[in-house]
Protein backbone atom coordinates (compact mmCIF):
# COMPACT_ATOMS: atom_id res chain seq x y z
CA UNK A 1 0.00 0.00 0.00
CA UNK A 2 2.64 2.48 1.05
CA UNK A 3 5.01 1.35 -1.70
CA UNK A 4 2.27 1.80 -4.32
CA UNK A 5 1.48 5.27 -2.99
CA UNK A 6 5.18 6.19 -3.08
CA UNK A 7 5.35 5.21 -6.75
CA UNK A 8 2.48 7.55 -7.61
CA UNK A 9 2.94 11.04 -8.98
CA UNK A 10 -0.14 12.92 -7.90
CA UNK A 11 -1.97 14.76 -10.68
CA UNK A 12 -3.61 17.01 -8.08
CA UNK A 13 -0.28 18.15 -6.64
CA UNK A 14 1.57 18.51 -9.97
CA UNK A 15 1.98 21.73 -11.96
CA UNK A 16 0.46 21.99 -15.45
CA UNK A 17 3.92 21.47 -16.96
CA UNK A 18 4.58 18.34 -14.88
CA UNK A 19 1.16 16.93 -15.84
CA UNK A 20 1.62 17.43 -19.55
CA UNK A 21 5.22 16.14 -19.47
CA UNK A 22 4.04 12.96 -17.74
CA UNK A 23 1.00 12.57 -19.99
CA UNK A 24 2.77 12.62 -23.35
CA UNK A 25 5.36 10.12 -24.61
CA UNK A 26 8.77 10.94 -23.10
CA UNK A 27 10.66 13.51 -25.16
CA UNK A 28 7.72 14.28 -27.48
CA UNK A 29 6.61 17.51 -25.72
CA UNK A 30 6.95 20.57 -27.94
CA UNK A 31 5.52 23.83 -26.62
CA UNK A 32 4.01 26.59 -28.73
CA UNK A 33 4.63 30.09 -27.37
CA UNK A 34 6.91 28.97 -24.52
CA UNK A 35 7.42 31.34 -21.56
CA UNK A 36 10.57 32.90 -23.02
CA UNK A 37 8.64 33.96 -26.14
CA UNK A 38 5.39 35.18 -24.62
CA UNK A 39 4.48 38.00 -22.30
CA UNK A 40 2.26 38.29 -19.22
CA UNK A 41 -1.28 39.69 -19.28
CA UNK A 42 -1.40 43.47 -19.85
CA UNK A 43 -4.75 43.59 -17.99
CA UNK A 44 -3.18 42.27 -14.79
CA UNK A 45 -0.32 44.78 -15.13
CA UNK A 46 -2.89 47.60 -15.30
CA UNK A 47 -4.37 46.32 -12.04
CA UNK A 48 -0.87 46.24 -10.53
CA UNK A 49 -0.81 42.45 -10.28
CA UNK A 50 2.12 40.26 -11.35
CA UNK A 51 1.34 38.02 -14.33
CA UNK A 52 2.82 34.72 -15.46
CA UNK A 53 4.92 34.40 -18.62
CA UNK A 54 2.63 31.71 -20.04
CA UNK A 55 -0.54 33.40 -18.67
CA UNK A 56 -1.36 30.19 -16.82
CA UNK A 57 -1.72 27.79 -19.74
CA UNK A 58 0.65 25.50 -21.62
CA UNK A 59 -0.24 24.69 -25.24
CA UNK A 60 1.80 22.02 -26.97
CA UNK A 61 1.90 19.12 -29.34
CA UNK A 62 3.43 15.72 -28.81
CA UNK A 63 2.54 12.06 -28.92
CA UNK A 64 0.49 9.64 -26.84
CA UNK A 65 1.55 6.05 -27.54
CA UNK A 66 3.05 7.30 -30.81
CA UNK A 67 -0.16 9.00 -31.99
CA UNK A 68 0.02 12.75 -32.69
CA UNK A 69 -1.69 14.71 -29.92
CA UNK A 70 -2.35 18.35 -29.12
CA UNK A 71 -2.48 19.20 -25.42
CA UNK A 72 -3.70 22.22 -23.49
CA UNK A 73 -2.85 22.39 -19.77
CA UNK A 74 -4.20 25.03 -17.39
CA UNK A 75 -2.18 25.98 -14.30
CA UNK A 76 -4.58 26.03 -11.37
CA UNK A 77 -2.04 27.63 -9.03
CA UNK A 78 -1.90 30.82 -11.11
CA UNK A 79 -5.07 32.85 -10.41
CA UNK A 80 -7.19 29.74 -10.07
CA UNK A 81 -6.51 28.63 -13.64
CA UNK A 82 -8.73 31.49 -14.73
CA UNK A 83 -9.24 32.32 -18.40
CA UNK A 84 -7.94 35.74 -19.37
CA UNK A 85 -7.49 37.18 -22.84
CA UNK A 86 -4.03 35.73 -23.67
CA UNK A 87 -4.80 32.47 -21.85
CA UNK A 88 -7.97 32.08 -23.93
CA UNK A 89 -6.31 33.10 -27.19
CA UNK A 90 -3.65 30.42 -26.73
CA UNK A 91 -6.33 27.76 -26.19
CA UNK A 92 -8.46 28.92 -29.13
CA UNK A 93 -5.41 29.09 -31.41
CA UNK A 94 -4.48 25.51 -30.52
CA UNK A 95 -8.05 24.26 -31.10
CA UNK A 96 -8.28 26.01 -34.49
CA UNK A 97 -4.97 24.48 -35.47
CA UNK A 98 -6.41 21.07 -34.55
CA UNK A 99 -9.24 21.63 -37.06
CA UNK A 100 -6.62 22.10 -39.79
CA UNK A 101 -4.01 19.53 -38.78
CA UNK A 102 -6.34 16.83 -37.40
CA UNK A 103 -4.25 15.22 -34.65
CA UNK A 104 -5.51 11.94 -33.17
CA UNK A 105 -7.00 13.94 -30.27
CA UNK A 106 -6.82 17.13 -28.27
CA UNK A 107 -6.22 16.52 -24.57
CA UNK A 108 -7.58 19.40 -22.50
CA UNK A 109 -6.11 19.40 -18.98
CA UNK A 110 -8.71 21.59 -17.28
CA UNK A 111 -7.90 23.12 -13.87
CA UNK A 112 -9.91 26.31 -13.68
CA UNK A 113 -12.53 28.27 -11.81
CA UNK A 114 -13.67 29.85 -15.11
CA UNK A 115 -13.41 33.42 -16.36
CA UNK A 116 -10.64 35.65 -14.97
CA UNK A 117 -12.82 38.34 -13.47
CA UNK A 118 -9.95 40.87 -13.60
CA UNK A 119 -10.17 40.73 -17.38
CA UNK A 120 -13.95 40.99 -17.47
CA UNK A 121 -15.35 41.02 -21.00
CA UNK A 122 -12.09 39.85 -22.59
CA UNK A 123 -12.26 36.74 -20.41
CA UNK A 124 -15.95 36.13 -21.14
CA UNK A 125 -15.36 36.45 -24.88
CA UNK A 126 -12.39 34.08 -24.58
CA UNK A 127 -14.58 31.44 -22.90
CA UNK A 128 -17.24 31.69 -25.60
CA UNK A 129 -14.57 31.39 -28.29
CA UNK A 130 -13.19 28.29 -26.57
CA UNK A 131 -16.69 26.72 -26.52
CA UNK A 132 -17.17 27.34 -30.23
CA UNK A 133 -13.67 26.11 -31.05
CA UNK A 134 -14.15 22.85 -29.08
CA UNK A 135 -17.31 22.12 -31.07
CA UNK A 136 -15.51 22.95 -34.34
CA UNK A 137 -12.74 20.50 -33.50
CA UNK A 138 -15.26 17.76 -32.72
CA UNK A 139 -17.21 18.51 -35.90
CA UNK A 140 -13.93 18.02 -37.79
CA UNK A 141 -13.84 14.48 -36.38
CA UNK A 142 -11.11 15.10 -33.80
CA UNK A 143 -12.01 14.05 -30.23
CA UNK A 144 -11.41 16.56 -27.43
CA UNK A 145 -10.86 14.80 -24.11
CA UNK A 146 -11.12 16.77 -20.86
CA UNK A 147 -8.88 15.59 -18.01
CA UNK A 148 -10.08 16.93 -14.66
CA UNK A 149 -8.19 16.30 -11.43
CA UNK A 150 -6.59 19.57 -10.34
CA UNK A 151 -7.22 21.65 -7.24
CA UNK A 152 -9.51 24.11 -9.05
CA UNK A 153 -11.61 21.44 -10.76
CA UNK A 154 -13.68 22.61 -13.74
CA UNK A 155 -16.09 25.39 -12.77
CA UNK A 156 -17.87 28.33 -14.33
CA UNK A 157 -17.31 28.68 -18.06
CA UNK A 158 -14.73 25.91 -17.94
CA UNK A 159 -17.33 23.58 -16.44
CA UNK A 160 -19.41 24.18 -19.56
CA UNK A 161 -16.35 23.71 -21.78
CA UNK A 162 -15.64 20.38 -20.07
CA UNK A 163 -19.16 19.17 -20.86
CA UNK A 164 -18.77 20.25 -24.50
CA UNK A 165 -15.79 17.93 -24.88
CA UNK A 166 -16.17 14.41 -26.33
CA UNK A 167 -15.62 12.89 -22.89
CA UNK A 168 -14.30 13.69 -19.43
CA UNK A 169 -11.75 11.66 -17.48
CA UNK A 170 -11.85 12.59 -13.80
CA UNK A 171 -10.17 11.58 -10.55
CA UNK A 172 -11.84 11.41 -7.16
CA UNK A 173 -10.07 14.70 -6.34
CA UNK A 174 -11.45 16.38 -9.47
CA UNK A 175 -14.61 18.47 -9.35
CA UNK A 176 -17.03 19.52 -12.06
CA UNK A 177 -19.94 21.98 -11.84
CA UNK A 178 -21.18 25.33 -13.08
CA UNK A 179 -21.28 27.72 -10.12
CA UNK A 180 -18.56 27.01 -7.58
CA UNK A 181 -19.48 26.23 -3.95
CA UNK A 182 -18.43 29.67 -2.67
CA UNK A 183 -20.46 31.38 -5.41
CA UNK A 184 -23.61 29.44 -4.49
CA UNK A 185 -23.16 30.21 -0.79
CA UNK A 186 -22.57 33.91 -1.50
CA UNK A 187 -25.63 34.23 -3.72
CA UNK A 188 -28.12 31.91 -2.01
CA UNK A 189 -26.89 31.67 1.58
CA UNK A 190 -25.26 29.03 3.73
CA UNK A 191 -28.62 27.24 4.20
CA UNK A 192 -28.58 26.53 0.46
CA UNK A 193 -25.00 25.30 0.31
CA UNK A 194 -22.23 25.26 2.92
CA UNK A 195 -19.04 25.70 0.90
CA UNK A 196 -16.88 25.01 3.96
CA UNK A 197 -18.30 21.50 4.26
CA UNK A 198 -15.63 19.89 2.08
CA UNK A 199 -17.22 16.43 2.23
CA UNK A 200 -20.55 17.88 1.02
CA UNK A 201 -18.80 19.80 -1.77
CA UNK A 202 -17.23 16.55 -3.01
CA UNK A 203 -20.47 14.57 -2.62
CA UNK A 204 -22.14 17.10 -4.94
CA UNK A 205 -19.38 18.10 -7.39
CA UNK A 206 -16.56 15.54 -6.90
CA UNK A 207 -15.19 12.96 -9.30
CA UNK A 208 -16.92 9.93 -7.77
CA UNK A 209 -20.33 11.60 -7.91
CA UNK A 210 -19.80 12.77 -11.49
CA UNK A 211 -18.74 9.29 -12.53
CA UNK A 212 -21.70 7.61 -10.81
CA UNK A 213 -24.07 10.07 -12.55
CA UNK A 214 -22.57 9.27 -15.95
CA UNK A 215 -21.21 12.80 -16.45
CA UNK A 216 -17.68 11.46 -16.84
CA UNK A 217 -16.64 8.56 -19.05
CA UNK A 218 -13.87 7.33 -16.80
CA UNK A 219 -12.77 7.54 -13.17
CA UNK A 220 -9.00 7.31 -12.72
CA UNK A 221 -6.66 7.37 -9.72
CA UNK A 222 -4.97 10.63 -8.74
CA UNK A 223 -1.84 9.60 -10.61
CA UNK A 224 -0.26 11.08 -13.74
CA UNK A 225 0.37 7.57 -15.13
CA UNK A 226 -3.30 6.65 -14.53
CA UNK A 227 -4.48 9.70 -16.50
CA UNK A 228 -2.05 8.77 -19.27
CA UNK A 229 -3.16 5.14 -19.52
CA UNK A 230 -6.82 6.17 -19.12
CA UNK A 231 -6.58 8.66 -21.99
CA UNK A 232 -4.83 6.13 -24.23
CA UNK A 233 -7.39 3.43 -23.39
CA UNK A 234 -10.31 5.78 -23.99
CA UNK A 235 -8.98 6.98 -27.35
CA UNK A 236 -8.33 3.43 -28.54
CA UNK A 237 -12.04 2.64 -28.22
CA UNK A 238 -13.47 5.96 -29.42
CA UNK A 239 -14.38 7.47 -32.76
CA UNK A 240 -15.93 10.90 -32.78
CA UNK A 241 -19.60 10.64 -33.87
CA UNK A 242 -20.96 13.08 -36.46
CA UNK A 243 -23.13 15.76 -34.80
CA UNK A 244 -26.84 14.93 -35.09
CA UNK A 245 -30.11 16.49 -33.98
CA UNK A 246 -31.39 13.12 -32.75
CA UNK A 247 -28.37 12.80 -30.48
CA UNK A 248 -28.91 16.30 -29.07
CA UNK A 249 -32.62 15.60 -28.45
CA UNK A 250 -31.75 12.38 -26.62
CA UNK A 251 -29.27 14.32 -24.49
CA UNK A 252 -31.87 16.96 -23.69
CA UNK A 253 -34.40 14.27 -22.73
CA UNK A 254 -31.85 12.59 -20.46
CA UNK A 255 -31.26 15.93 -18.69
CA UNK A 256 -35.00 16.48 -18.24
CA UNK A 257 -35.39 12.99 -16.79
CA UNK A 258 -32.52 13.67 -14.45
CA UNK A 259 -34.01 16.95 -13.26
CA UNK A 260 -37.34 15.26 -12.58
CA UNK A 261 -35.69 12.41 -10.67
CA UNK A 262 -33.16 14.29 -8.52
CA UNK A 263 -33.95 18.02 -8.37
CA UNK A 264 -35.44 17.84 -4.86
CA UNK A 265 -32.37 16.19 -3.30
CA UNK A 266 -29.91 18.12 -1.14
CA UNK A 267 -26.94 15.78 -1.06
CA UNK A 268 -25.08 13.21 -3.15
CA UNK A 269 -26.00 10.57 -0.55
CA UNK A 270 -29.70 10.87 -1.49
CA UNK A 271 -28.91 10.70 -5.21
CA UNK A 272 -26.75 7.59 -4.77
CA UNK A 273 -29.52 5.86 -2.81
CA UNK A 274 -31.93 6.70 -5.63
CA UNK A 275 -29.44 5.25 -8.13
CA UNK A 276 -29.85 1.92 -6.31
CA UNK A 277 -26.69 1.94 -4.17
CA UNK A 278 -27.48 -0.05 -1.02
CA UNK A 279 -24.96 1.71 1.25
CA UNK A 280 -24.52 5.24 -0.10
CA UNK A 281 -22.57 6.37 2.98
CA UNK A 282 -19.80 3.90 2.02
CA UNK A 283 -19.18 5.59 -1.37
CA UNK A 284 -16.72 8.27 -0.15
CA UNK A 285 -14.52 5.55 1.39
CA UNK A 286 -14.33 3.27 -1.66
CA UNK A 287 -11.15 3.23 -3.72
CA UNK A 288 -11.28 3.76 -7.46
CA UNK A 289 -11.53 0.09 -8.49
CA UNK A 290 -14.27 -0.67 -5.96
CA UNK A 291 -16.28 2.34 -7.09
CA UNK A 292 -15.99 1.39 -10.77
CA UNK A 293 -17.15 -2.16 -9.87
CA UNK A 294 -20.08 -0.65 -7.92
CA UNK A 295 -21.13 1.50 -10.86
CA UNK A 296 -20.89 -1.39 -13.30
CA UNK A 297 -23.19 -3.42 -11.05
CA UNK A 298 -25.90 -0.73 -10.91
CA UNK A 299 -29.22 -1.12 -12.74
CA UNK A 300 -29.24 1.03 -15.89
Amino acid at each position, binding site marked *: MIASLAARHSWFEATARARVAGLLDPGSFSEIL*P*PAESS*PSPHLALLD*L*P*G*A*FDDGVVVCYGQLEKKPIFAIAQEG*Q*FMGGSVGEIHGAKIVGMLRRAVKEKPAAVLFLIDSGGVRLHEANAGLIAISEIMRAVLDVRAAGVPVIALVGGSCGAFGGMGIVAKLCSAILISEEGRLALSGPEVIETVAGVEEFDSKDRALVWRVTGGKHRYLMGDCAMLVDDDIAAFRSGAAEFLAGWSEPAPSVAHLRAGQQALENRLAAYASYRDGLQVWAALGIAEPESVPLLDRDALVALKEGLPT
Partner: protein
Amino acid sequence: METLEFRFNSKPVPRVADPALCGVVGSGNLEILVKPGIEPEACRVRIKTSARGFGETWRAVLDSFASSHPAGGTVIAINDMGATPAVVTLRLAQALAEYQGGAL
Protein backbone atom coordinates in the same frame (compact mmCIF):
# COMPACT_ATOMS: atom_id res chain seq x y z
CA MET B 1 3.09 45.58 -7.58
CA GLU B 2 6.70 46.70 -7.55
CA THR B 3 9.31 46.27 -10.28
CA LEU B 4 12.92 45.86 -9.16
CA GLU B 5 16.08 45.61 -11.23
CA PHE B 6 19.52 44.49 -10.08
CA ARG B 7 22.91 43.65 -11.56
CA PHE B 8 25.41 41.42 -9.76
CA ASN B 9 28.91 40.30 -10.63
CA SER B 10 29.02 36.50 -10.80
CA LYS B 11 31.26 33.80 -12.23
CA PRO B 12 30.10 32.66 -15.68
CA VAL B 13 27.77 29.64 -15.73
CA PRO B 14 29.74 26.74 -17.21
CA ARG B 15 27.12 25.72 -19.75
CA VAL B 16 24.35 27.54 -21.52
CA ALA B 17 21.23 25.60 -22.57
CA ASP B 18 17.77 26.74 -23.67
CA PRO B 19 15.90 29.25 -21.55
CA ALA B 20 14.86 27.57 -18.29
CA LEU B 21 11.68 28.11 -16.29
CA CYS B 22 10.75 26.90 -12.85
CA GLY B 23 8.06 27.65 -10.30
CA VAL B 24 4.53 28.99 -10.64
CA VAL B 25 3.09 32.42 -9.84
CA GLY B 26 0.97 31.08 -6.98
CA SER B 27 0.56 32.30 -3.42
CA GLY B 28 3.93 32.17 -1.61
CA ASN B 29 5.59 31.02 -4.80
CA LEU B 30 7.30 32.61 -7.81
CA GLU B 31 8.35 31.77 -11.35
CA ILE B 32 11.89 32.26 -12.56
CA LEU B 33 12.92 32.44 -16.21
CA VAL B 34 16.65 32.23 -16.98
CA LYS B 35 17.84 33.42 -20.40
CA PRO B 36 21.31 34.07 -21.82
CA GLY B 37 22.61 37.63 -21.34
CA ILE B 38 25.39 39.55 -23.04
CA GLU B 39 27.71 40.12 -20.06
CA PRO B 40 29.56 36.85 -19.23
CA GLU B 41 30.65 38.07 -15.76
CA ALA B 42 27.31 39.51 -14.66
CA CYS B 43 23.79 38.42 -13.86
CA ARG B 44 20.92 40.83 -14.44
CA VAL B 45 17.67 40.30 -12.54
CA ARG B 46 14.29 41.92 -13.14
CA ILE B 47 11.56 41.23 -10.59
CA LYS B 48 7.86 41.96 -10.60
CA THR B 49 6.51 41.31 -7.13
CA SER B 50 3.11 41.66 -5.48
CA ALA B 51 4.80 42.50 -2.15
CA ARG B 52 5.97 46.12 -2.00
CA GLY B 53 8.86 47.43 0.05
CA PHE B 54 11.17 44.40 0.10
CA GLY B 55 13.82 45.75 -2.29
CA GLU B 56 16.67 45.47 0.21
CA THR B 57 15.68 41.89 1.10
CA TRP B 58 15.68 40.95 -2.58
CA ARG B 59 19.09 42.59 -3.01
CA ALA B 60 20.55 40.65 -0.06
CA VAL B 61 19.10 37.29 -1.17
CA LEU B 62 20.16 37.72 -4.79
CA ASP B 63 23.61 39.09 -3.91
CA SER B 64 24.25 36.11 -1.68
CA PHE B 65 23.08 33.76 -4.41
CA ALA B 66 25.15 35.40 -7.17
CA SER B 67 28.30 35.23 -5.04
CA SER B 68 27.83 31.59 -4.04
CA HIS B 69 26.66 30.22 -7.43
CA PRO B 70 28.07 30.85 -10.89
CA ALA B 71 25.27 32.83 -12.57
CA GLY B 72 27.24 35.14 -14.92
CA GLY B 73 26.05 35.53 -18.51
CA THR B 74 22.38 35.28 -17.62
CA VAL B 75 19.31 37.49 -17.54
CA ILE B 76 16.81 36.36 -14.92
CA ALA B 77 13.17 37.43 -14.97
CA ILE B 78 11.03 36.80 -11.90
CA ASN B 79 7.27 37.03 -11.34
CA ASP B 80 6.67 36.84 -7.60
CA MET B 81 3.55 36.31 -5.49
CA GLY B 82 5.04 36.76 -2.02
CA ALA B 83 7.66 34.01 -1.88
CA THR B 84 9.86 33.96 1.24
CA PRO B 85 13.67 34.37 0.91
CA ALA B 86 14.16 30.61 1.46
CA VAL B 87 11.78 29.76 -1.38
CA VAL B 88 13.46 32.34 -3.62
CA THR B 89 16.91 30.82 -2.99
CA LEU B 90 15.61 27.30 -3.61
CA ARG B 91 13.89 28.25 -6.86
CA LEU B 92 16.96 30.15 -8.08
CA ALA B 93 19.12 27.07 -7.52
CA GLN B 94 16.51 24.95 -9.30
CA ALA B 95 16.23 27.33 -12.26
CA LEU B 96 19.98 27.60 -12.67
CA ALA B 97 20.35 23.80 -12.52
CA GLU B 98 17.70 23.47 -15.24
CA TYR B 99 19.52 26.09 -17.28
CA GLN B 100 22.66 23.96 -17.12
CA GLY B 101 20.84 20.89 -18.34
CA GLY B 102 18.82 19.50 -15.46
CA ALA B 103 20.99 18.09 -12.64
CA LEU B 104 20.39 19.83 -9.33
